[in-house]
């Protein structure tokens, strides 16, 4: 499989290579082989074919022969449901980040406080939703927020925060709010752990020096913690943007895109055309997947550039 590769690199092997080295090379290739095969078949080939399919009018059954050029792309781009699905993905991502970014940072600061007892217990508690099955959580939440006799309404009414039960999942706006709140609850612990890892990697001696100079909590926060954490913050932002835009399990089980497509996100839209339609439109779904994938990719490249700029500026500032 990789003999052309070997042939092209054979010149780099030292001529005196002993028998032992050659045997080791053979073993190394054999060790790489299973993962390489898996990679070629289940990673690289699907990525390539996800582009190829998008240029065909194809239901997924029978030969791939009806080449239609950019026709699928034009159709996707002119579908108003795709536009709104696209926007919903961004609304969800944006809402979730606005809510969880500052809150998780605050929580990580508190849990990083060494004088606090029981930090591990709190960490476990807040991390718990992360490890649970999103699809199951989505289903439980349909009952928690459900329209009649729901737990949330009962609680809010008994606290006199609400007079009449709210049909949370029946109205477009509140359904999106529920998705964002549940999504935030679900991923909160993950983001918190990222922040904690960042906080724990900060150099202790800098803080000690600042303390000697008489800097209080807020001043070391402003002049040490926040500037030093900017690269970590940028990475967290990047991960949350990509994860938030690709939300599927939660939407599928909690609202299934409803009421009437009001919370249908891009991945749900694509799924609908690929697997949920009477006759699947695989080519069309692939085109939508490419358009959305390229958008997410462009955004993450921009954010990656931000990560690098922040890091470089920090290093430059440290030296100067």
């Amino acid at each position, binding site marked *: 499989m990789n003999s052309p590769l070997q042939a092209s690199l054979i010149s780099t092997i030292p001529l005196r290579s002993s028998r032992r080295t050659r045997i080791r090379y053979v073993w190394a290739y054999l060790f790489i082989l299973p993962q390489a095969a898996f990679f070629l078949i289940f990673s690289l080939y699907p990525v390539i074919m*996800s582009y190829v399919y998008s240029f065909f009018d194809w239901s997924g059954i029978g030969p791939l022969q009806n080449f239609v050029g950019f026709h699928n792309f034009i159709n996707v781009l002119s579908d108003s449901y795709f536009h709104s699905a696209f926007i919903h993905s961004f609304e969800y991502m944006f809402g979730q980040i606005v809510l969880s970014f500052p809150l998780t940072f605050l929580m990580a600061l508190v849990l990083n406080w060494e004088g606090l007892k029981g930090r591990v217990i709190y960490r476990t508690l807040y991390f718990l939703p992360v490890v649970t099955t999103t699809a199951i959580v989505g289903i439980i939440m349909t009952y928690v927020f459900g329209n009649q006799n729901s737990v949330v309404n009962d609680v809010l009414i008994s606290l006199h925060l609400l007079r009449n039960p709210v049909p949370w999942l029946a109205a477009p706006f509140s359904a999106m709010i529920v998705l964002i709140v549940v999504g935030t609850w679900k991923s909160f612990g993950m983001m918190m752990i990222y922040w904690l890892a960042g906080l724990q990697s900060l150099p202790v001696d800098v803080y000690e020096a600042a303390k000697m100079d008489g800097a209080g909590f807020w001043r070391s926060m402003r002049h040490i913690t926040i500037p030093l954490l900017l690269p*970590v913050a940028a990475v967290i932002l990047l991960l949350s943007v990509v994860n938030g835009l690709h939300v599927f399990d939660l939407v599928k089980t909690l609202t299934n895109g409803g009421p009437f497509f009001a919370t249908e996100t891009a991945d749900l839209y694509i799924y609908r055309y690929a697997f949920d339609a009477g006759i699947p439109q695989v080519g069309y779904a692939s085109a939508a997947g490419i358009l959305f994938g390229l958008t997410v990719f462009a955004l993450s490249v921009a954010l990656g550039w931000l990560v690098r700029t922040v890091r470089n500026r920090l290093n430059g500032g440290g030296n100067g």
Partner: protein
Amino acid sequence: MNRKNPLHYLTHVILLAFGVVWVYPFVWMISASLKTNLEVLNSGMTLLPKIPQWANYLRAWSEAKFSVYFLNSVFITVSTVAIVIILCALSGYALARVNFPGRKVILFIIAAMMFIPKGYTIIPIYQIIKGMGLLNTLTGVILAESSGAHVLFILLFMTYFAKLPKELEESAEIDGAGFIRTFAQVMLPLSKPIIATTAIMQFIWTWNSFLVPLVFTLSRPELRTLAVGMLSFVGEYTTDYAGMAAGASISLLPIILVFVFCQRYFVEGIAGAVKE
């Protein structure tokens, strides 16, 4: 330890209140799973059931086929974890210990894989499994679940194996062990922490996976995993709230237990991933 500090107490009060809200959905789930349907409807806020209805679990387990879903989930998850560990340990070892021609190319491909814009790759994966004649089989689901470049795990194994001293390998070879015996009997047992991290993380990912089993079991209900089975259950029995809660508890309790007992490996793995 300044216990007199009122800020200390206030922090604990806030953290605890927050924590109660945080786990409330799970507490509600377990409480509802032990109530009658009428109780779930009328006394949503009271957590303790009048008489614990263990029959709900029995109904979910046998009648609603959660026993089948559970076994499918276990089988798929365990197989996937085993495959991923084998693939990653082998390739990580080769990349770390042998400077074979083409090693740099492979490292470059691993890094570059993260920077390729992808389309909707589940469709081609579906077509490959179909082409192999494995559609509507558990093997097909396992193969699809084991797909992915496993970049994080390969890197974890690679950096770990690279750190082990050369003398270990040499003394094993003097004792007459070949490449594979040195790996299997000397080096692999030393990498237990990485195996544990990989196992826990992959276990949680596969157990929680939804899209792959959903797509691959559309026409075969007996192959459903817990997550997919749950969705079809609430579609069929819309008013069996207690049964729903019992099914959800059956699905979530194993993963919660795995996490609580092995969280060190999981949290460290994630923290390691973000630092890379």
